């Protein structure tokens, strides 16, 4: 082969074919998607996230949570039997996301429906602060840098949003920084659970995701804290919501 222009033309045409087929055509097919009516609530779906959840999405992106957590319930494999969702996730579910973080690795559980599985913000905060408290042996790193430890003055009452309060002579409490609260707001907003025309529920919806779950984090229990050496002698008081 000695014909330079012909070589160049071929090189151009091959990539042009996939750029057309795998980039432009999908954009033509999906780029014009709009919100649809949620047949369960008669509202529009997907709803835009709250301001705090939007900030949380930025924290999620910035910390690279996607390196371990996917956000997709696949039609492949056994995701639904694992209670990761009542139905497959479809393009409609990601309409408002930027960046869309489907993930390419499941070192941690799928989070497409974490907000439906786990509705308690405090449990999620505990899990971020020290995953081993709520899930002994967890391989998730602790995100202590999203929290701050505050010394309590004498007679000062612990803040209502305090996570761990130690009542011994040091008297201190652990407070979530705004980043942690925002991240948890984002996690709570993650639920792809509107029945859609293209993705109806395959399981009876009475079996709500949050009600029965085999692999979600259990609420931080006082026992777990007492036996943990991460926070020695730190009785956990769960403040009223």
């Amino acid at each position, binding site marked *: 082969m000695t014909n330079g222009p012909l070589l160049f033309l071929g090189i151009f045409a*091959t990539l042009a074919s996939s750029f057309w087929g*795998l980039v432009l055509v999908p954009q033509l097919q999906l780029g014009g998607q709009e919100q649809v009516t949620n047949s369960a609530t008669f509202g529009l779906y997907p709803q835009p996230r709250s301001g705090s959840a939007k900030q949380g999405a930025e924290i999620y992106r910035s*910390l690279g949570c996607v390196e371990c957590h996917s956000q997709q319930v696949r039609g492949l494999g056994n995701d639904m039997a*694992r209670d990761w969702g009542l139905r497959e996730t479809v393009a409609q579910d990601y309409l408002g996301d930027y960046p869309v973080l*489907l993930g390419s690795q*499941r070192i941690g559980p799928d989070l497409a429906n974490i907000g439906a599985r786990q509705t308690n913000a405090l449990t999620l905060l505990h899990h971020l602060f020290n995953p081993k408290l709520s899930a002994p042996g967890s*391989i998730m790193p*602790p995100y202590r840098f999203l929290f701050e430890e505050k010394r309590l003055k004498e007679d000062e009452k612990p803040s209502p949003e305090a996570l761990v309060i130690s009542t011994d002579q040091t008297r201190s409490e652990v407070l979530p920084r705004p980043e942690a609260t925002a991240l948890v707001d984002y996690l709570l907003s993650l639920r792809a659970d509107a029945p859609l025309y293209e993705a109806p529920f395959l399981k009876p919806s009475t079996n709500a995701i949050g009600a029965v779950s085999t692999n979600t984090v259990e609420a931080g229990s006082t026992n777990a804290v007492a036996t943990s050496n991460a926070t020695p002698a730190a009785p956990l008081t769960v403040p009223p919501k």
Partner: protein
Amino acid sequence: MIASASSECSAAVTAGAVERRLAPSEIDVSCRGPLLLLFVSGLSWLVLGLLLALISSIKLHAPAFLADVPWLTFGRLRPAAMNAILYGFASQTAIGVSLWMMCRLGRTRLLFHTPLFLATALWNSGVLLGLLGILSGGSTGFEWLEMPRFVSPILFLAYALIGSCALVTFYVRAERSIYVSQWYLVAALFWFPWIYSAANMLLVFFPVRGVVQSIVNAWFTNNFLGLWLAPIGLGSIYYFIPKLSGRPLYSAQLAAFGFWTLALFTNWTGLTKLVGGPVPAWITSASIAANFLLVIPLLCAAINWHLTLRGLYWKAKSDATLRYIVFGAASYLAASVISILLGFREISGVTHLTFVEAAQVQLALFGFIAMALFGSLLYIIPRITQREWPSARTARLHFRCSVAGIILIFLSLAAGGILQGFGINNPSAPFLDVMKSTIPFIGISTLGQLLLVAGQMALLWDFVVLLREYAAPLRKTTLGWVMNSEIGKGEARS
């Protein structure tokens, strides 16, 4: 160039010059400055990237390790390591190797030293800023495009300079016939700016909505490996196999058929990464079909290489470069077969989103691309500096460490990933138990990472020693010149 030996005379005529043909050593020397800079920075990024990868691998079995440093959290380390390896090492070294092959095959000197130096400096500062951006939390969130948005124009500009230099070098070649390696190089040099700019435009600057982002991202990552790094790796395999075995390539027709089928099908395979995901089924189906068709170029390459080398494999024992090239070629075949297998829905139902896919990428990236590049470096560096490698022992150590590391990483991740895939698909197995069962395998892969980085450190050390030896006479003359002029000044004053 061996295949085209017959047309050398006509080439001299078409070049329109009566000047004598350039000797290979003259071409090598003309490449010296820019290539040394590209190679030494490439290897430094490789060592840094592998160190980051090692820390992130340790974190998988010891999550509390360095957990309180936000800059070194797992989710930032891993993309930083990948970006250092992909942009800092692989792309940069591949560019250097292609420039050299372009000159050798086209029988021209490497011109444009100043633009090349500038572009290399720009590229390296871009990579540095990008890594700092990722580690400080500025990741874009798109796989292999994590560097913050202000970095991609820097990298693109640097590439535009280097790529134009390479293409002009190709255009003004004295040897007019075009060898197989040049097809791959020209293609890669043209494809990279397209995929890189298109992906950045559609994801970062004027983002498309919803899952189209994931589609564009999958198209980009597949093509980054398959249409940018792999063709340069293949180019060097097609260059060195005939050259070092001393036997012309078995069939140029077969190579041409392999090239065009590879160019067409690799393009379309990207979306196997989204199998079962929230995208229209036709997209993944088209990719799965293209993925299966990759068998054709794979067989073409395997047959062509084997028939060229048949009966000459023993040469790899004494020839270090050939050893690397043969290992790289074998890894290319293995990684491609695995990638074809992982495309089938029955298999991807288990392996998708597990360590198995990471294992395949590691095999393709290190086993094939990096090893082909190392082989080329081993050949090129002594020729452009006109110095021998300081230590044959280090070179052997580098080969052994690299091979052992790559095999350990690949096998352990693949085994752990299969366990992970079956475990996740079994709803009665608690998720955490599944992940704990993979930890011993992750431990073995950390060991592999350690071996790999040790080998690369040895290579970099050797390279630095060589450079110092090379620079020593230069330093002496400079020093002597400075001192002489000092003396001269003193004499003049007195």
